[in-house]
């Protein structure tokens, strides 16, 4: 028999980096940037700091592996900073996380990402990550290189030195040098990532330099740091037996009843009695969980699953909110019109979930003949690969967008110069893979996303319908001008009539078609007033001071658009 060896977590990941987002040079760059930004934003939020990020992704040479470039990725934040003793853990050790299984809607969850980035840099450029960190308590900043010791899954801090770091009081700067390739646009592009991050994080200000482009910045549109909801305990109905037993080991010699009540949400004293009724042996109630046999665990577990429990609380989810989304969407480009929808938090598959949707039509991006640009988010992190299997994509494709005025091939994304941003936030998002690229499509979740999309679609359709009526009116008016004279001319010719009759017929025609165009005008006005009512409602929701001003502006915009079109003609 061959010898069985045991490998460290780091060894496993070093060999399987493709599982965590390092399957190609392009993805390696994006994933590294993403992990560094996620960490910065999570840290800032936890300390209620409004994040200012400086991001730089540039090519600095040729990569060591074939067909790659040497890429420098720098992310600098104004977060709380990392203590010297934590540097090795954060950047050089897998599964060392402050967030793992905590039941919070943080971006990072497992503590894999940034260590994987360090590993990739180390494997392709023989150096880990260069970190500068300063907390408020530190007099000087610390600069060091952190590597992963793959054999033991521990971080190694090298070349440690104290430095003066501009005038910064606190923050972290990470710098990776690694093999990779830069792609700016498209689904997996860096710019798409930056835009997505800006959209869902209205409180973030970013300065960025990507590839050969100069420095650009996007200012924050909200000065409120999102309030991170309290962590929530897991709901017992989301567990499998194995997880249930593992979870109990955290509770040592605690009695079974106490373990159930404190280890899970929605279990009260009365629930214990219900479990007993459902077949949980009464003798086990006060027994320490550590002494329970697997067989006994199974009985308890089955009874818990068989008992109806209250759905978990939805207080643990956070939303960006329609107001902030409305402001944030303008950061992506020149918006023609948009519609946002924040659903009430709900329960899908026994997990609290909230879905937010922003649909916007842009003047300066996309075109009528291409599918809409889809931006997917899970816990406010853009998902950029493998969209076909994602719950969000499924939900969009299941909606009949034609009824809202958009073109859509069967079972596909709709068409047009739109951005469809869909965000799913939950403390327990189920991903299809460890690189967190696709949300698992459960029926309940797809249905919830679908509802949000349909509500947003209805709002959007008011804009589109008003436009269509406007176009309809223009078409009708043009028709009268174009075809009326031909009709009369041919009738006069065929009937052999004289000029006097021609004139009379022309007058008659004007009267008839005038009545029709009046009707079309009133239809347009009706559609516009419906839209104005919606805009008013939205302005009120967003807390804008004077609703009438907004409505008036809309009217003005509609009018100026009309005159623009006329001028063009």
């Amino acid at each position, binding site marked *: 028999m061959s010898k069985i060896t045991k490998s460290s977590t780091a060894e496993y990941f070093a060999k399987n980096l493709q599982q965590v987002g390092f399957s190609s040079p392009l993805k390696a760059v994006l994933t590294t940037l993403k992990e560094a930004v996620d960490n910065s934003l999570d840290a800032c939020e936890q300390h209620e700091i409004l994040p200012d990020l400086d991001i730089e992704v540039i090519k600095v040479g040729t990569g060591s592996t074939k067909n790659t470039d040497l890429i420098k990725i720098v992310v600098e934040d104004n977060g709380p900073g990392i203590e010297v003793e934590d540097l090795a853990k954060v950047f050089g050790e897998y599964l060392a996380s402050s967030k793992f299984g905590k039941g919070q809607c943080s971006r990072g969850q497992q503590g894999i990402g940034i260590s994987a980035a360090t590993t990739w840099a180390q494997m392709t450029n023989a150096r880990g990550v260069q970190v500068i960190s300063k907390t408020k308590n530190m007099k000087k900043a610390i600069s060091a290189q952190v590597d992963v010791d793959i054999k033991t899954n521990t971080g190694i801090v090298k070349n440690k030195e104290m430095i003066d770091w501009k005038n910064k009081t606190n923050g972290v700067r990470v710098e990776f040098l690694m093999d990779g390739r830069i792609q700016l646009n498209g689904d997996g592009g860096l710019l798409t990532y930056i835009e997505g991050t800006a959209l869902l994080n209205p409180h973030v200000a970013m300065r960025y330099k990507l590839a050969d482009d100069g420095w650009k910045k996007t200012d924050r549109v909200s000065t409120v740091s999102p309030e991170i909801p309290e962590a929530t305990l897991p709901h017992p109905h989301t567990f499998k037996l194995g997880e249930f037993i593992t979870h109990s080991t955290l509770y040592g010699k605690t009695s079974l009843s106490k373990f159930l009540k404190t280890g899970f949400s929605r279990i009260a004293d009365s629930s214990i009695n219900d479990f007993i009724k459902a077949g949980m042996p009464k003798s086990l109630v006060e027994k320490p969980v550590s002494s329970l046999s697997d067989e006994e665990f199974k009985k308890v577990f089955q009874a818990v699953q068989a008992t109806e429990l209250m759905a978990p609380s939805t207080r643990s989810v956070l939303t960006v909110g329609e107001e902030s989304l409305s402001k944030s969407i303008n950061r992506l480009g020149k918006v023609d019109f948009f519609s946002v929808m924040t659903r009430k938090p709900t329960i899908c598959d026994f997990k609290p979930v909230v879905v937010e949707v922003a649909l916007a039509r842009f003047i300066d991006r996309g075109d009528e003949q291409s599918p809409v640009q889809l931006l997917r988010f899970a816990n406010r992190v853009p998902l950029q690969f493998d969209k076909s299997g994602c719950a969000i994509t499924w939900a969009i494709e299941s909606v009949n967008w034609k009824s809202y005025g958009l073109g859509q091939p069967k079972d596909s994304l709709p068409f047009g110069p739109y951005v469809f941003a869909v965000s799913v936030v939950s403390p327990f998002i189920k991903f299809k893979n460890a690189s967190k690229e696709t949300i698992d499509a459960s029926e309940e979740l797809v249905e919830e996303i679908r509802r949000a999309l349909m509500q947003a679609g209805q709002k959007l359709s008011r804009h589109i319908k008003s436009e269509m009526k406007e176009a309809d009116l223009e078409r009708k008016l043009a028709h009268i001008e174009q075809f009326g004279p031909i009709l009369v001319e041919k009738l006069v010719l*065929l009937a052999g009539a004289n000029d006097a009759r021609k004139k009379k017929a022309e007058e*008659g025609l004007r009267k*008839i078609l005038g009545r029709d165009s009046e009707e079309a005008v009133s239809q347009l006005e009706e559609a516009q007033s419906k839209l104005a009512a919606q805009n008013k409602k939205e302005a009120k929701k967003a807390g804008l001071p004077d609703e009438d001003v907004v409505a008036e502006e809309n009217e003005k915009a509609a009018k100026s658009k009309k005159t623009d079109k006329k001028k063009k003609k």
Partner: protein
Amino acid sequence: MALIKIRELRLDIPKEAKHLAERMLKDLENSKRPYLEAVKTSLDNAEYNSKVGYLTPGDKVVRTELNVSSVQKLARVLFILEILLRNLEIGAVNTKRELYYMCKGTIKKGDSKYKALDFESQDESDSIIDFIGDMLEVYREELNCYANDRGGQTYSQQLVVTETLPDGDKANVDLSTLGTSPFQPKNRPQSLKLKAKKKIDFCLVVESEGTAGTLQSMGFTKRNNCILMGAQGVPSNGVRGWCKLIEDQLDVPMYFFGDLDAYTMQNIFRTLKAGSAASLIRNSDFSAPNVRFLGVLPTDVKKYDLECYKVKESDPAEARALKKAKDALENDPFFKDKKNKNLSDVLRWLIKEKIRCEQQSYFSVDPRDPIKTEKIILEKIRKGDYL
């Protein structure tokens, strides 16, 4: 040059057009909405009476009243009507495609205001031409608009056709003298007089032109006193009019021999026997109500152990044909008529069995006998094995 009339038309087209324009103009002068009405040419306005034998129009009309949406169509109708009337006046004939280009040319060279009328594709001008025909209740040929000749190649040793030409000359065509060439009926009105040199026993219309050719090559018309014709798929107006002429002028039984599938039964045989819904106003001159369905019959499949295909419902075309067959049983007055129960039973059989059997499968019965198919056909005629 005077053209030969297809029928005695009581209507004077230019006069009718003038009358129509006069009525519309008057409406306009009175600020009333002028309108055009045409017979609704669709299955829901088709009636069938087995005594009449073909599909006739019901009472439904398509009314196009002037409004901002229809003003374009009305202007286009009048625009094309003017071109057609000019053609009638000078005796010029055209195909629909040619008319499409004439419209485009008139628009290009005419007043700039005509630009708005321009036709993007031929469908647009075709539908207006059809509308004008339905509106005046005249055939397109009566508007001097002819279709390409297709199908109807005919062989016979007994048939003599006398054609009166526009200038009054007469041309005699004895089909037995044409060698291996067939007689080709025109897809346009011809003044033809038919005569049989010797008693003709039957007329056989074969769906496949190729199979008709094979039968002819193997001496079918030499051995039998008959008329043999290839339909070339869905029968064109030429084929339908030609069959009608044979029925009217020669007292011979006519048989159709084609595939056993829903498409042949509905689109080919029904159109030959009773006309189509799209040509409701012309079915009286363009259908042969006495034609019988000789095969392939469902009973032949077993009797001759014929090769069949399974109808694949995954194939969109075949699935559509099956669906259409189901619709036909519910909505087509021809198949709903009791007199045609034996034909609708074939459709039901096809829907149930989900198989199709081609006319050429007769060649599988005895591959070594080159005239086996002829023998089967004759046997079926003799035994009255047809529907």
